[in-house]
């Protein structure tokens, strides 16, 4: 059957909701990659096998939904029982029978599966009351965890494709672009360029062929927001892409997904096929003259292919190297045709802008950065996962209210935002309102939204070294400042972290960085020295400690630290069995000793010691 009108969409929605009305309860099982790795599929299977044998009034296996990522990956696998919103964490296969018996057949809440608030130590029953969720505002992630991503009807039942119908049947392409401009939406891939302006420039180029591309090549270490959206709500991306195609006059679109995201590829492919079947992709969509089809282009995992011009080369089957963008992609992009490229999160925001209006969207966030931003909050923070917050929220609110503060209540040291091209912000910047411009002004950047929290045991020289090494390996290797410059920058950082640094090295690194920033071909090189420059800006004393005192204050750089057992040692022998190199000797109830010759400074003894008597300095 082909859906040809808004009325038919409503019909599909009604049928689906009527079907759902049979169930007194519904179970939402998070089947995002994090929860799947923790056994979510086995939990779904267990529900299936139990419900095959047992009949429950007002409940069948159809009411059990495998949904996309809920975001709170730390606590997975997650099971939510609607309509109450009972929130069970860290569920195991053996718990399923109990959950069916108590929480589905009757209304009992099983305390032991509930989430405990780390601050108040209180058990919380409903997920909207959990601090991790209650401070969020979900727009791009609106459907994640609520719908089954492989079921197009579930998406339509939640208002899906109504925006596309509205755009195609009541608006001109010009109206569409004006509306997007009015919403103030800025590209969520990192640059923060106005989406409306980009679409306008592309639409203005006269050509028989225009292209739209969705960038799903998310490569920042620790970032997984685009992955989760493609896995958990692929239709919203497709709907956004189709609206963009109509606006700029494209007949063909591509979704570029990295092949390391197999589930995203599968769900995206399924979504495209379902759309073709329902007539939402193909010829004369909604009985208008608009024809549009989407293909998946799979990336082979090069970080640089997230750069727009490299991505377009990769789609065209060439080596993924960026080109100089003196002529922009909106004029000469894929196959030298005008091309609009936005990332997954940007497209996921589009349908709701047309559903609720540009003014509604522009009212969220700050004046220059409207709407919300998805962050993947990771590192030394209690609640890790995927969060969506309005722009302008402070780092403190994100890390302490949503993230629940630092693990073990250790002191906060820095937060790294923007992936390898971003920078580290210190404690003094915790009250900084987060938006595109404020982060850039302070030496970091929004990037695609990675946020890595660090405590006092993180060495900033080591952090800069890690990210620079990442970029040395992931640079495309085309231009000299990036390929050779970052390599030499990394060499200097290694030298400092090994205690061979000289006072002049900091100046040398700064001078070299300036050339890399000014002379590199693409954004990767131009922002490549950011991790170094931002740590130098805020943690210069740590560099000096490494160079002048040959000391690593955080106790990380192996060449500069020694492990010693203090006199408070109780002689419990735990560290002796933990040490794989047999470097620790000692007798029961007597102070143990570390043989410095054998010690590899792996830190296993520190982890094993319950009395905190191993001194690292």
């Amino acid at each position: 059957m082909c859906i040809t009108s808004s009325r038919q969409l409503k019909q599909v929605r009604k049928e689906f909701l009527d079907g759902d009305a049979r169930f007194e309860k519904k179970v939402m099982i998070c089947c995002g990659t994090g929860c799947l790795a923790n056994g979510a599929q086995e939990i779904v299977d267990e529900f299936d096998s139990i419900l095959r044998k047992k009949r429950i009034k007002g409940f069948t296996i159809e009411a059990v939904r495998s949904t996309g990522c809920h975001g709170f990956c730390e606590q997975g696998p997650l099971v939510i029982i609607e309509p109450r919103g009972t929130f069970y964490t860290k569920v195991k296969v053996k718990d399923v029978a109990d959950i069916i018996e108590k929480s589905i057949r009757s209304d009992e809440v099983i305390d032991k599966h509930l989430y405990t608030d780390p601050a108040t130590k209180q058990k919380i029953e409903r997920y909207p009351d959990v601090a991790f969720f209650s401070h969020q505002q979900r727009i791009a992630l609106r459907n994640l965890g609520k719908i089954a991503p492989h079921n197009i009807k579930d998406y339509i039942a939640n208002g899906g494709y109504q925006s596309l119908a509205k755009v195609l049947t009541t608006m001109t392409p010009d109206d569409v672009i004006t509306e997007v401009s009015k919403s103030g939406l800025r590209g969520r891939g990192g640059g923060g360029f106005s989406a409306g302006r980009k679409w306008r420039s592309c639409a203005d180029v006269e050509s028989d062929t225009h292209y739209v591309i969705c960038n799903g090549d998310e490569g920042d270490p620790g970032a997984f927001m685009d992955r989760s959206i493609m896995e958990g709500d692929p239709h919203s991306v497709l709907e956004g892409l189709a609206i963009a195609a109509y606006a700029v006059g494209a007949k063909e679109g591509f979704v570029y997904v990295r092949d390391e995201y197999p589930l995203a590829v599968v769900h995206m492919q399924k979504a495209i096929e379902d759309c073709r079947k329902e007539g939402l992709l193909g010829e004369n969509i909604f009985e208008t003259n608009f024809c549009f089809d989407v293909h998946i282009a799979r990336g082979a995992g090069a970080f640089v292919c997230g750069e727009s011009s490299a991505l377009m080369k990769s789609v065209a089957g060439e080596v993924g190297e960026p080109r100089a963008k003196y002529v922009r992609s909106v004029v000469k992009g894929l196959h030298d045709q005008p091309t609009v490229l936005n990332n997954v999160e940007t497209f996921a925001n589009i349908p709701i802008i047309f559903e609720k209006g540009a003014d509604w969207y522009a009212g969220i966030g700050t004046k220059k950065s409207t709407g919300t931003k998805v962050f993947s909050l990771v590192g030394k923070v209690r609640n890790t996962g995927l969060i969506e917050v309005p722009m302008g929220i402070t780092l403190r609110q994100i890390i302490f209210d949503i993230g629940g503060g630092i693990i073990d209540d250790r002191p906060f040291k820095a937060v790294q935002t923007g992936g390898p091209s971003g920078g580290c912000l210190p404690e003094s910047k915790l009250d900084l309102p987060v938006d595109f411009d404020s982060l850039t002004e302070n030496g970091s950047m929004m990037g695609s939204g990675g946020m890595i929290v660090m405590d006092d045991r993180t060495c900033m020289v080591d952090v800069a070294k890690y990210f620079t090494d990442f970029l040395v390996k992931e640079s495309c290797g085309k231009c000299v400042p990036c390929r050779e410059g970052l390599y030499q920058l990394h060499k200097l950082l290694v030298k400092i972290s090994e205690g061979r640094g000289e006072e002049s090295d900091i100046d040398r690194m700064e001078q070299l960085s300036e050339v890399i920033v000014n002379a590199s071909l693409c954004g990767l090189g131009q922002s490549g020295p950011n991790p170094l420059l931002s740590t130098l800006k805020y943690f210069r004393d740590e560099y000096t400690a490494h160079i002048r005192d040959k000391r690593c204050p955080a106790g990380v750089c192996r060449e500069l630290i020694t492990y010693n057992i203090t006199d408070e040692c109780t002689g419990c022998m735990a560290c002796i069995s933990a040490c794989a190199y047999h470097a620790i000797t000692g007798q029961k109830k007597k102070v143990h000793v570390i043989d410095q010759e054998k010690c590899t400074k792996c830190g296993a003894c520190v982890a094993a010691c319950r009395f905190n008597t191993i001194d690292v300095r």
Partner: protein
Amino acid sequence: MVTLTINGKLVRAREGEMLLDAIRREGIEIPATCQHEAVEPYGACRLCTVEITKADWGGWKNHVTSCLYPVQEGLIVSTHSEDVIRIRKTILDLFLARCPNAELIQNMAAEYGITRTSYEEVPDGNDCILCGLCTRVCDKMGFQAISTVGRGHGKEVAPPLGEAPPDCVGCLACAQICPTNYIKFTDDGTTRTIWGREFELVKCETTGQPTITKEFAAYLVKHRNIPEDYFTRCDSAHREELAKTMGRITHWGRQEEA
């Protein structure tokens, strides 16, 4: 035509022309390693970076690679500003750390007063400067036999899977365009070896001189509509035949005049 200022002098240039061409026409020397008239500009070495501004940019300046930047009306270009010199020196310094023995780089660096790199030498450095001229010329010839392989600091030029390239015809375009003579080949008049593959040479039926490889000849016959027997004669044999023909034509002319 557009008018722009290069180092203080008003200059006219063709629309769509690249800045580097306009600069060189003025007799100003700028180093560039990845630029060659045979292939499209690439922008990899960044040595041709210049500083640009415009009267209405409010003092804002930008650094662009002149090989790729199309000329613009009113552009004010500075080819040897302090910032540009610093960028060029740093790049040559970085190049020397990777290719200390490449003569081209040594000479360019010497012009900017650098004789030894101030950075740590790359342990497995060689003479390849990764300018991409070889792979681009191979693409342009229509073979795509070699390509850059890998990424980051370990990137190199190589045939597929490091094996003898199946699409190579032994035309030597890559070796001839290589500015540092890094691409090696042997040619003993009967066989030619390049990229680990051996090619048999076609010999001239008249002089016995080698012409081109059999694979290259077959390619040109098939794709460029060149007569099959064309390569069985060397250049001097072709010339000789041409001279004879021309001689006959001239002879006829004289007869008619008389």
